[in-house]
């Protein structure tokens, strides 16, 4: 188990490091950051002075190494646009994204797993079709459109939920549904196919033959078995919810990390972009690691392989 952990951990570090180098180069390739910061009305002299002030005149590798050194000292730098340390900026934005991501994945799990189980219990019936249809709708409808539909129904017509901002728990209901719905089809279908396999397996048949109650067979014997791949998927989807909520955060005016990333790219706020990418890559990698470990715990065969 220890070797397995160490190997996975090393992979995680490698993924994060590569992401950071690629991101750093991409930001610089996408245009002159000094020009972006100086703005449209700036004279060449203004742009030059910005370049000097922020050190963009030095060679790229040198800029990268300087940045990396400071990160190892725990200093993520400073957002030139928001006039605060990157750590402060992230501390302001991260709770919103984490809350949103957690609620969204909770919504997705609570919706898709029962649907998946239901579909597997009555395969190729109307129940199955309805369940699949409901879940696949999440993939078919673009998230911004679904979000606007939610705003129209619950915010404008019924007026029961707030439309924008993050002032209270109620503010997170619509965004969490909009974001979570997108993750349902994958989880639901994997649950369904896993359950179908599990229900036909020998040990479930044996459990049934023992005369155990149907719900116990389904939940304890079949579902537990079917959940192994689903757990990995949920972890990956959670990473996706944390890193990919730009559209939802924009539509609902939530000042989260995804929105911050998008804005920072437009402003060439390099140190913020770098920190976010590092953070998201790390979150992704750690979640995958957690899923591997969890699966290793559920199924000892994985640890060996």
């Amino acid at each position, binding site marked *: 188990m220890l070797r397995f952990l160490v190997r996975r951990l090393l992979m995680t570090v490698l993924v994060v490091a590569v992401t950071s180098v690629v991101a750093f180069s991409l930001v610089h390739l996408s245009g002159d950051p000094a020009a*972006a910061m100086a*703005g449209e009305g700036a004279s*060449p002299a203004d742009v030059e002075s910005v370049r000097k002030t922020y050190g963009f005149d030095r060679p790229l590798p040198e800029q990268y190494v300087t940045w990396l050194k400071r990160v190892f000292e725990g200093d993520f730098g400073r957002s030139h646009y928001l006039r605060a340390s990157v750590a402060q900026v992230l501390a302001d934005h991260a709770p919103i994204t984490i809350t949103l991501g957690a609620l969204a994945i909770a919504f997705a799990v609570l919706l898709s797993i029962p649907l998946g189980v239901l579909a597997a219990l009555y395969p190729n019936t109307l129940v199955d079709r309805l369940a699949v249809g409901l879940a696949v709708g999440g993939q078919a409808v673009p998230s911004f459109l679904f979000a606007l539909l939610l705003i129209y129904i619950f915010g*404008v017509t019924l007026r029961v939920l707030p439309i924008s901002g993050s002032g209270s*728990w109620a503010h997170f209901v619509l965004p969490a549904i909009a974001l979570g719905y997108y993750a349902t089809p994958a989880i639901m279908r994997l649950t369904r196919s896993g359950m179908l396999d599990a229900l036909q397996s020998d040990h479930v048949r044996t459990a049934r033959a023992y005369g155990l109650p149907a719900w116990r067979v389904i939940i304890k014997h079949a579902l537990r078995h079917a959940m192994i791949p689903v757990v990995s998927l949920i972890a990956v989807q959670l990473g996706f919810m944390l890193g990919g909520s730009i559209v939802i955060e924009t539509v609902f005016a939530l000042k989260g990390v995804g929105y911050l990333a998008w*804005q920072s790219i*437009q402003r060439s706020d390099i140190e913020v972009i770098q920190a976010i990418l590092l953070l998201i890559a790390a979150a992704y990698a750690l979640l995958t690691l957690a899923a591997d470990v969890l699966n290793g715990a559920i199924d000892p065969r994985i640890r060996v392989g």
Partner: protein
Amino acid sequence: MMNKNIWAAMAFAAGAVCLAPQAAMAGKSNDTLTWATASEVDTIDLYYQNLREVVIMAHQMCDTLMHRDPRTGEYKPLLAESFKWVDDKTLEFKLRHGVKFHNGKELNAEDVAYTFNHARKPDSGVVTRLLVDWIENVEVVSPDTVRFKAKAPTPAAIEYLSGITPVYPKGHYDNAPSVPGAAGKMRRDYGAVVPMCTGPYKVKEFKPGSSVTLVKNTDYFKDSPKGQPSIGTLVYRTIPDTETQVAELVTGGLDWIWGVPPENAKQLASMENVTVKAAPTTRISFLSLDAAGRSGDTPMKKQQVREAIAYAIDRKAISHDLVGEGSEPLVSMCYPAQFGCSTDVKDYPYNPQKAKDLLKEAGFPDGFEIPLYAYRDRPYTEAVANYLRAVGIKTDLRFLQWKALRGPLQEGKVAMAHLSWGSQGVLDASASVSNYFEGSVDDYARDEEVKKWLDAADSTIDPNKRKELYGKALKKIADKAYFVPLFSYGRTYAFNKELDIPVTPDELAHFYLAKWK
């Protein structure tokens, strides 16, 4: 059993708390005007952020030496009582008595001199250099008299000192934080200081990137040409998505938004609680053509080709049908409301046949191919490209972000670009036409005669002489079809029907003039 019921009741209560609609923050009932745009505001100091939103806030919080009445366009002394040009390069202001900053300190000449002597310094980091670069020095003559020494005669000085250059108390930036700059050196972050002003509203709370709350200044000086503020609280919020802004406006969560797209404007106008109005802005859209051949030997060097391009594009159709209300087609390379912007120049009405004939004359009977660079409002650029294709000019559209386009454009590598320019809100032709034809990096005509006229116009105090010089330059620019002016941008404003606010052609909101009906 009892246990279960308690849980159910608690769950229900929690749900009810979550689902209860929030008390609306906006509206007449609590005397709070809430407005939102898509921009994130990092600082509300106009010297360090020239976003239109910050210009709007500065007009509410701060006063300037002069004031341009947004409804009439007339210049009136604001913090000044009067002004006079002592000579071509010396502008003297007598200050108004009894004006107080929000911290209670009385305004005097030291404050004015401090503010501008800080801003004019090349290392002050002020973003809109145009507004302060003309200043050589500012001197205190007496506690209520201050003199601006200009580097050269600057007729636009009165415009620069109206509305967009707030006056702060002496020592305002003393406590600006030091932050790490390049190469381990520290630098001062002046923009991080919250402005201290004399205006009709004062800052109550500022959350960078999210919101700004201003409250009425009940001590505002009585005879201000801006009048007395009426609405108690102004709240600014950032809401990135237009659809969300519209939904908030319709449901009363917001009182004022702008930049409503034409497709939403009609629908919104039909709502009974919303007023929709459009107004022009100073932003102009045009094609930059490389007549001087900076980018090499391209067809743009031929006058007939440039004229053909001008005839090929239906500016009226783009302006009215695509850009929408508030937008106007342009004939001249400036915004018509700017001082000196003559529109008495050669017009190129839409005539695709004439364009084809001119191309044939120029030696391109089958047209030609050329890259077209652009960075803003892709649909407008695509419309231009379609009109050009119709006469045989096949454009290869290269749509970039400004930060990527700026380099090649200013290094003289771009034969044809669809650009826009807002004149930084300055209502003087020196801020528009001179920007592109005075030999700067953006000048693709390099016409010595035009440059000479513009140089003279920018530094002559006599208004009539200036008008004549700008007129000559603009006429030649149009005759030679150096650039192709297309249209001015409009803005559509939508607001709470209970709000009484003038919609002005300066792309600003003057909330100090607003009242509840």
